[in-house]
């Protein structure tokens, strides 16, 4: 049976309801919450600050360090506290995605720490995490040459869809589910992160990437609005 109608009734190119809020962790230099429906991420940025241990320092530029973590109760089966292979890989992948947009040449020997936490998971958590982290970096005033937005594009049987849910991820009919998480820089339109699980043709993959880029433009607009809101609020203070 073909995937003709989405489980939650969305259009094929429609994301879930997006919420973005900047300034959720007062202690941090920058912070934000970002959600796709029931997937909720918060991110906090601390830095640029002195990096210890010293041997990790780069005398030419500051480094970005990202840590992604799911709260134990964010999924049905409780996650044991502490890092896993999965969270370690996602941390690094998010770091690669975000590092492209930051300009840390003026901050040699320092580190910018980005902490991402997922409090509720319904697939696409890394995308929500990257989106929250981008907002937090901008909020912290870290110099950036561009802005990163992220989305998952899926293929259910033969149908390409935007922003995959857990239920869709588990789709088994026909060709099954393919899940492609990707992130783009807004202005340059360049791809800074892509991961794929499933099975897809050349042609469909190109289509998926194009749809991903278009969707990230829309997500960027929501992020920009959230940043503006907090800037105006902070100005009033």
């Amino acid at each position: 049976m073909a995937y003709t109608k989405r489980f939650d009734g969305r259009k094929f190119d429609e994301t879930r309801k997006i919420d973005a809020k900047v300034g959720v962790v007062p202690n941090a230099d920058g912070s934000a919450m970002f959600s796709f429906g029931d997937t909720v991420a918060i991110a906090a940025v601390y830095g640029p600050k002195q990096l210890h241990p010293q041997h990790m320092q780069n005398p030419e530029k500051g480094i970005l360090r990202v840590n992604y973590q799911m709260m134990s109760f964010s999924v049905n089966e409780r996650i044991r506290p502490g890092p896993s292979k999965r969270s370690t890989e996602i941390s690094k992948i998010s770091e690669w995605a975000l590092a492209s947009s930051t300009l840390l040449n003026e901050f040699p020997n320092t580190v910018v720490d980005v902490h991402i936490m997922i409090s509720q998971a319904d697939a696409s958590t890394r995308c929500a995490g990257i989106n929250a982290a981008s907002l937090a970096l901008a909020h912290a005033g870290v110099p950036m040459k561009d802005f990163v937005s992220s989305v998952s594009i899926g293929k259910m049987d033969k149908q390409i869809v935007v922003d995959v849910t857990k239920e869709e991820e588990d789709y088994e009919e026909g060709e099954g589910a393919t899940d492609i998480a990707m992130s783009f820089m807004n202005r340059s339109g360049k791809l800074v992160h892509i991961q794929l699980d499933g099975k897809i043709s050349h042609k469909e993959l190109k289509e998926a990437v194009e749809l991903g880029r278009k969707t990230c433009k829309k997500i960027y607009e929501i992020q920009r609005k959230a940043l503006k809101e907090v800037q105006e609020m902070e100005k009033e203070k």
Partner: protein
Amino acid sequence: MIEESNLTAKRIHEYLEHGNRFDKRNTEEYREIEVKCGISKKSEGSAKVKIGKTEVWVGVKMEVAEPYPDSPDKGNLMVTAELTPLSHPKYEYGPPKFDAIELGRLVDRGIRESKYIDLNKLCIEKGEKVWQIFVDVYSINDDGNLLDAAFIASVAALKDAKIPFYDKKEEKIDYKKPSKEKLPLTENEPFNFSIYLIGDKIILDPIQDEENASDGRLVLTVIPTKPISICSMQKSGEFEISEEKFSEMLDVVEKTYKTLFPKIQKLAESSVKSSKQ
């Protein structure tokens, strides 16, 4: 860095000489408290609590597990706390440090000793299968008094929790079946006080700077018997308490409890009601 915090501590002492605090509260006054339940749909119960700028999120998860050998017909309770680097630059990744371990233990002890959860009712098959309750605490923003925030959030998350559907034949939890059954909670709702000593002054609900300037704290959990009882206590930190001071601390608790506990209880209960779970 060290000098800066010494100066702050000195100023805090000077202020307290005149009974004043940086944020104009009196010594026994709490900051504004917010309680919100149902913050994570995949948990069995959840809550976030803000006390001033301090924020803590707690989730309850349940699994079917083997009982402990010394309590074959009782459910298990485990409280874990993570002091996340997201919540303050002083926290780091890695194995939990003492502060996180102690926080988890203090919440655990307070809840356990209060007998707030009727663990006898969480036995599925004596000696074989019981419900295991995990209470997991995450700091989101630490501006002092994390423990009291964590405690309020843990109790609220327990109130919010529903026992998931256990399929006895398949021997697993079916998360697709809606769960309606609440946790077996008793009248003994525990409430925690962290009472800080700064010099000879007793203060409640410290901000971070006050916490750093303090000599230490006395932590105690109160249950609403008539008159009230204390079900757990721990002196935390290397400092001395005279008998008079100790008794003064207990008086402060008794006085504050009367107005604070009903207020928090109401906040949590109305939030459970409005939580969609």
